[in-house]
């Protein structure tokens, strides 16, 4: 690989306006639901209103009789061809996973499961007919609460015999990466500090703005499937692996896709049912979900109980962390499914130097919507836990929470750093990011104001929240995935086609759905090949155009896919070099390449790359033994993850009389290595922040005791609006990643991972003097108010409880705050 410093840098780092925008701001976008094909049939799903039931009969006669209805199909009608929604990551070899049929044949495991499908001439008729399908259900007892699921008193899938899916552990002593956690805890219990907490990661709904839609055209021999998916290549694999259709006959296209956030990282029942109906009828079919269907049937995110034990010395030096997770998978193990919480295993230790560490994760099934990746996937949960704990430790020691972090974090001269969880952090500078953030925030002034408000007994108290986060992204080195029993690789692919008339086609296996790949990829290729930005066309999201790819999730597109692009570009140059030598009548060693031209050293003789492309297209004159093409492909498999980090500071005002919270200021300084396009990066950070803030303050998927999702629309599932949010102060420090030649780190998930604990830490900080050390998310005014009302009643009035209860084996939640909130365990 050529040295990082000698490449042209005109495009990389420039705030190019996006190529994608023109069609999006003028309404010329190609959403899946826009597709109309001749003879197209519209589908509507009949879904179970029950969380757990046996289907004893389905009467479709009345629905079939409705004018305009073409067919009504049930699970048994398509059982042979419907395939299976796969799980790619059985986290242990003995993981229990029920088959996830796209359409139920007889057993419903969560509300919203598809039990029948109507095909009709219009979407409106299909929906009318779906209302007329008469399904007999035998209701079964449903298990809805995660902790109850762990008792196996009621089974989500009686045939499994247990609700437990798998147990997974990472232990620093066993792995040789650190000490014995039990020893660290015992020592701390004797003469140090032990912080024991139980935190709730509530269930969230990804809430991409474009409802999912699938169009399937069975064109005789081939099947074309358009879908609003993040993962066209994985969908194609899933279809081929489970429906009997040969992979070579399946073309999957993700046209413009309106957001995903992990929510479209899935093979969906709806895709498979639409495919089955299209194959059965031999006609193109379209299914577009309503938002209410999306809320209950698209997978959810998070949903953990976290039992945490942090051991430290009296001065606040952390000696060990033990993590025990209970995770709700919902009714099925999704594509990543059980592996999502496991992604947190390497992140609970975060930026800190812990002597000992143990991560335990037990996954359970319940009769709720299945849970899978949502922006951050495992890492926000981990970051929340450790950043909340560091604040609790600071309170216990009686120092500023930033001081406790400084005492424990990895210093800039310790990189590369082998973490207690077994990861090697390649680069970073936590001190630099923190110094910059503190300055931008006006930390000392805000602390002084906080003190004044405390002293004056102001009913509106000020709190400051810190989150010094890191994450691992750029999924992922294939060998690492293999060692974790993951079913696929983590490489990415790119191709570059040098067209005859001077433009360049770039094919990427990443599949953008709002990120701006067309723009950023153009910048990288323009620099590398010395061609104008405008002359680069980026093609993606169609398995026939981009046949190889692992798609877009896990902040991987740039750090993995971007590197594939660099390598393909370098191959183009390498292939063109002997041709240039031939055309210039010079030796290969006498040539140098810069700004799109090969020149003979010390002369003004030269030829442009695009001229070589035209010359080799004619093929009239080229050296023996070479192929007449300078196009190139590359597949890049990363050797390490990338580890972005940052310091996020949040000031929250809490009205102690009403529980209302108001965000006053939010500052973040992120280190994401080399930045290709600062405009796109800022956008990713802003959007990420608000999703994390949404978890802290507003969002939560709530079920009633029947297993009905009561936050099943945008009326009840309260997404942040413009009026709820503020403008942010964002900045960067730069420690280039060493695992790819551009020096980039992922940024897609950083804001979401970092912001949730910053906000909750700020709220708790505002009311800690009232004796409050936790408020369960989302920190609604009601919960904050109740915590304030019950403070002193359920916790010591002193800010530092000197005799905290320790966890007893099998004891229920002992976090005092959890008892004060509604919906615990829901």
């Amino acid at each position, binding site marked *: 690989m050529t040295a990082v410093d000698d490449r042209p840098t005109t495009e990389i780092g420039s705030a190019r306006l996006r190529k994608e925008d023109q069609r*999006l701001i003028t309404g010329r976008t190609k959403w899946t639901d826009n597709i109309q094909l001749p003879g197209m049939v519209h589908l509507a799903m009949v879904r179970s209103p029950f969380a757990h039931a046996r289907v004893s009969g389905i009467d479709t006669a009345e629905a079939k009789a409705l004018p305009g209805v073409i067919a009504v199909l049930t699970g048994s009608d398509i059982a042979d061809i419907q395939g299976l929604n796969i799980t790619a990551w059985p986290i242990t070899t003995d993981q229990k996973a029920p088959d996830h049929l796209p359409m139920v044949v007889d057993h419903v495991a969560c509300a919203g499961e598809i039990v029948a499908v109507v095909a009709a001439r219009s979407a409106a008729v299909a929906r009318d007919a779906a209302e007329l399908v008469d399904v007999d259900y035998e209701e079964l007892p449903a298990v809805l609460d995660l902790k109850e699921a762990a008792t196996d008193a009621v089974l989500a899938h009686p045939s499994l015999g247990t609700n437990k899916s798998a147990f997974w552990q990472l232990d620093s002593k066993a792995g040789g990466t650190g000490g014995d956690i039990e020893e660290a805890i015992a020592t701390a219990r004797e003469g140090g500090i032990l912080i024991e907490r139980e935190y709730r990661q509530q269930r969230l709904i990804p809430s991409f703005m474009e409802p999912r839609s699938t169009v399937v055209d069975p064109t005789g021999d081939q099947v074309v499937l358009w879908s609003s998916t993040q993962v066209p290549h994985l969908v194609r694999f899933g279809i081929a692996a489970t429906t009997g259709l040969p992979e070579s006959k399946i073309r999957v296209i993700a046209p413009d*896709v309106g957001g995903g956030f992990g929510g479209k990282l899935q093979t969906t029942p709806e895709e498979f049912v639409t495919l089955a109906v299209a194959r059965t009828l031999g006609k193109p079919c379209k299914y577009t979900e309503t938002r209410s269907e999306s809320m209950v049937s698209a997978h959810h995110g998070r949903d953990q109980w976290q039992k945490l034990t942090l051991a430290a010395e009296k001065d606040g030096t952390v000696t060990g962390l033990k993590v025990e997770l209970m995770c709700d998978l919902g009714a099925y193990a999704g594509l990543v499914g059980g592996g999502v919480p496991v992604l947190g295993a390497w992140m609970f230790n975060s930026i800190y130097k812990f002597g000992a560490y143990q991560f335990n994760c037990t996954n359970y099934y319940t009769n709720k919507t299945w849970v899978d990746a949502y922006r951050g996937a495992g890492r926000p949960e981990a970051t929340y836990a450790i950043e909340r704990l560091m604040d609790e430790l600071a309170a216990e020691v009686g120092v500023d929470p930033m001081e406790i972090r400084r005492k424990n974090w990895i210093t800039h001269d310790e990189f590369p750093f082998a973490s207690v969880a077994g990861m090697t952090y390649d680069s970073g500078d936590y001190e630099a990011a923190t110094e910059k953030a503190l300055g931008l925030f006006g930390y000392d002034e805000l602390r002084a104001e906080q003190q004044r408000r405390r002293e004056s007994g102001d009913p509106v108290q000020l709190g400051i929240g810190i989150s010094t986060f890191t994450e691992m992204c750029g999924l992922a080195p294939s060998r690492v995935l293999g060692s974790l029993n993951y079913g696929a690789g983590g490489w990415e692919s790119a191709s570059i086609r040098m067209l005859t008339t001077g433009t360049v086609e770039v094919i990427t296996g990443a599949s953008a759905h709002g990120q701006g790949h067309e723009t950023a990829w153009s910048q990288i290729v323009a620099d590398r090949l010395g061609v104008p930005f405008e002359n680069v066309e980026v093609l993606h999201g169609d398995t026939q155009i981009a046949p190889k790819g692992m798609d877009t999730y896990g902040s991987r597109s740039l750090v993995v896919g971007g590197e594939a692009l660099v390598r393909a570009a370098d191959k183009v140059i390498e292939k063109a070099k002997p041709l240039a030598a031939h055309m210039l009548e010079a030796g290969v060693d006498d040539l140098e390449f810069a700004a799109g031209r090969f020149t003979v050293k010390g002369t003004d003789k030269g030829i442009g790359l695009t001229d070589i492309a035209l010359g080799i297209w004619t093929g009239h004159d080229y050296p023996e033994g070479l192929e007449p093409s300078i196009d190139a492909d590359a597949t890049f498999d990363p050797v390490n993850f990338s580890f972005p980090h940052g310091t996020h500071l949040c000031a929250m005002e809490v009205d102690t009389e009403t529980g209302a919270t108001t965000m006053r200021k939010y500052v973040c300084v992120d280190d994401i290595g080399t930045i290709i396009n600062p405009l796109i990066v800022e956008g990713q950070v802003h959007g990420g922040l608000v999703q994390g803030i949404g978890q802290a303050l507003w969002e939560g998927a709530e079920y009633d005791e029947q297993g009905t999702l009561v936050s099943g629309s945008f009326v009840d599932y309260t997404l942040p609006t413009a009026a709820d949010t503020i403008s942010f102060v964002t900045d960067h420090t730069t420690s280039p990643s060493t695992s790819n030649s551009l020096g980039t780190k992922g940024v897609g998930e950083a804001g979401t991972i970092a912001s949730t604990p910053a906000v909750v830490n700020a709220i708790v900080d505002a009311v800690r003097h009232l004796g409050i050390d936790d408020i369960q998310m989302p920190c609604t005014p009601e919960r904050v108010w109740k915590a304030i009302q019950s403070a002193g009643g359920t916790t010591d009035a002193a800010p530092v409880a000197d005799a905290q209860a320790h966890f007893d084996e099998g004891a229920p939640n002992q976090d005092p705050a959890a008892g004060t909130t509604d919906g615990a365990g829901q």
Partner: protein
Amino acid sequence: MTRITVNVDGVSCTDEVEPRMLLVHYLREVVGKVGTVVGCDTSNCGACTVHLDGRSVKSCNVLAVQADGHDVTTIEGLSSNGELHPMQAAFHENHALQCGYCTPGMIMQAVDLVTENPNPSEEEIRVGLEGNLCRCTGYHNIVKAVAAAAGSMSSERTEAR
């Protein structure tokens, strides 16, 4: 079926529609204006926002028959003579969109907001866009874009005087 005549983006359209048909479905399925999109089924998200006689409406909240005899402007009719509307340009220049799904509705609402209040404060912009949900941008750049467009729209008006 009911016969309606609606002027959509400057073109008079006469069609037979079911009385229950929503304006957004009429625009998408009958007229072919697929630039206007559906994001929810509870009138919360605003993705389907269009102008009815020059004022913003959520087209999922209006029946097609109610638009009979009226003018509808969609995102596809906003630019004129091949020039982007200042609001469209501002969204592009300020990176106020990512996936772009909320963008047509957001732009139509923002145009209405600035028409009503030519010099809005950040607070007024935020409140004015409260009925339009975006999941990608965190609203930061949308607010910036609307403020920028308000500035350029007001200087256009000054020049026109």
